[in-house]
């Protein structure tokens, strides 16, 4: 009869298609660059090139970690957007817009200016910063009638502006030679790879698994908290876990790649349009699709400029900001 298809079937189809997409963008991301032809790079990837050549070193030491970082960042930001949108039942929620990325950035800059090591200090301070902004934004906007949609966004926008001011304030005060680097990083930059892609992956993958397990409760939360509770969901516990886990992975990503906005808006909305509202499909789709998306965006960011490269945050904002306006327009109607 109509209506029911096993979730396994859909999951396998979605993962297969998006997995293939990820592999393609991965190969593209590695083989295209300023030095060496794409054909030669492909040979090296398949293990047929000269192992000690210049191109081989570039590929394995520079491009490979960078593409992995881009993929992880893309997956985390997309998933973060998805979680916040369903948890706050607001289609415009996203770590960047809610000010959570900004809060982590303030924490991360404090750590960096003090010259602390990235792991665990800078990341821990960034995590505290993100939790603090989250608590502030939610606390400010939580009225008796629950969370109001518009005030949540306003709170986030104000938080972002405030965090931006603090960041600039800190940068202006410091005499550090890092200033140029930090400014670049602020706009979203994936070139800082040597520091810690591996610790990032190790922390982020368990977060992915937890969120995937909570996909069904997230579906139910979308139908209202009392509705979810009457179907056996421990709303308070699950919301807490989701908020903390998401803030954790977002703040880690901010430490490594700076403020890359709008990814968490673009990717979840595209997949919602294609796949519908079921989070058991949306979570893996956002992980796989988000990583492909950022690999491609990063590829554009480093190949479009004639000389050097531009921060990848510029590309994602150019795609995402118009989408935000469109969604806002649709919500208001």
């Amino acid at each position, binding site marked *: 009869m109509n209506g029911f298809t096993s979730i396994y079937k859909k999951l396998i189809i979605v993962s297969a298609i998006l997995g293939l997409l990820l592999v393609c963008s991965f190969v593209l991301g590695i083989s295209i660059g300023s030095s060496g032809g794409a054909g030669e790079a492909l040979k090296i990837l398949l293990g047929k090139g000269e192992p000690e050549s210049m191109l081989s070193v570039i590929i394995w030491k520079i491009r490979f970690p960078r593409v992995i970082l881009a993929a992880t960042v893309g997956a985390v930001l997309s998933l973060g957007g998805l979680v916040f949108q369903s948890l706050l039942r607001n289609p415009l929620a996203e770590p960047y817009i809610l000010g959570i990325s900004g809060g982590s950035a303030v924490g991360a800059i404090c750590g960096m200016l003090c010259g602390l090591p990235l792991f665990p200090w800078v990341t821990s301070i960034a995590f505290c910063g993100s939790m603090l902004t989250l608590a502030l934004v939610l606390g400010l906007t939580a009225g008796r009638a629950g969370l109001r949609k518009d005030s949540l966004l306003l709170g986030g926008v104000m938080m972002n502006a405030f965090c931006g001011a603090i960041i600039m304030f800190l940068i202006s005060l410091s005499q550090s030679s890092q200033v140029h680097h930090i400014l670049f990083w602020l706009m979203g930059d994936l070139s800082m790879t040597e520091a810690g892609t591996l610790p990032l992956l190790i922390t982020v993958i368990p977060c992915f698994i937890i969120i995937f397990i909570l996909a069904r409760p997230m579906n139910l939360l979308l*139908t209202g908290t009392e509705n979810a509770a009457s*179907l056996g969901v*421990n709303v308070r516990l699950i919301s807490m876990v989701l908020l903390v886990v998401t803030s954790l992975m977002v703040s880690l990503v901010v430490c490594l790649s700076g403020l890359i906005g709008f990814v968490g808006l673009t990717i979840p909305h595209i997949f*919602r349009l294609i796949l519908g509202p079921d989070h058991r499909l949306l979570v893996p789709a956002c992980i796989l699709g988000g990583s492909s998306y950022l690999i491609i965006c990063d590829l554009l960011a480093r190949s479009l400029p004639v000389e050097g490269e531009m921060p990848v945050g510029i590309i994602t904002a150019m795609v995402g900001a118009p989408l935000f306006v469109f969604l806002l327009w649709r919500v208001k109607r």
Partner: protein
Amino acid sequence: MSAVTVRNLTLAYGKKPILREVSLSVEKGEFFVIIGPNGAGKTSLLKAIAGFNKSADTRVEIFGRPIAAYSRLQLAQIMAMVPQQIPADFPFAVADTVLMGRTPHLGLLGVEQEHDFMVARQAMEFTEVIHLADRRLDQVSGGERQRVFIARAICQQSRIILLDEPTTALDPAHQLKIMDLMERFRKERGTTLIMISHDLNLAAMYGDRLLLIKDGMIEKIGAPADVLTHEQLTSSYGCTLLVDENPVIARPRVTMVPEKCKRSQADGKIIDTM
């Protein structure tokens, strides 16, 4: 053992009291209807029974155990709720909505098996919404939407179903359809039904016992004929309500008296006391 027992429940919202020393018990398989004027505390009482109010958890017992002793999941396995309102932007299809009723019976990953599909299909057939299975919930009519949520509650296979004004905003045909559905379901499965209703005649026709509540206090609890009397209703609702016998069923029938008819009281046509 009663299905639901409330012992001396007092609730307040800030300083404003909502429920004052409410005690009641609902037997297994009973159709129990809560009536009362707006703001009387009906919904608060139903939510307390559903376990949505933490401060009520020790005062409410389900099958002899206080709610505090149940986990959210255990509670969902024995008690379902048909909500009064759903979010305006409800994105799920009818079939998926009904299938959500299986949640408390699924494992950790929440993957439905063939058995769950079967239960959902039967529930949709029972409430006659199976032909809508693929439609989005916000694309069906109000009466159909209520039947979808009743199908979800049935799909949950719980022994108690709580309903918050399920017939509001429905035309008479749909009101009857939903009430008959619930009544039939109760007869077949022995499910306990607790319902809030503003429609006194529906309450009289279907309820085994009624609870009349006002200002958070129990005014009267008992069989429809004992609760729905002219004196009781007129004093509780603060307007003239006439009661006679329903011509089709041996239950009370309530008639509202509009202002313009009260004036003809002088002619001695209408018997009114206040």
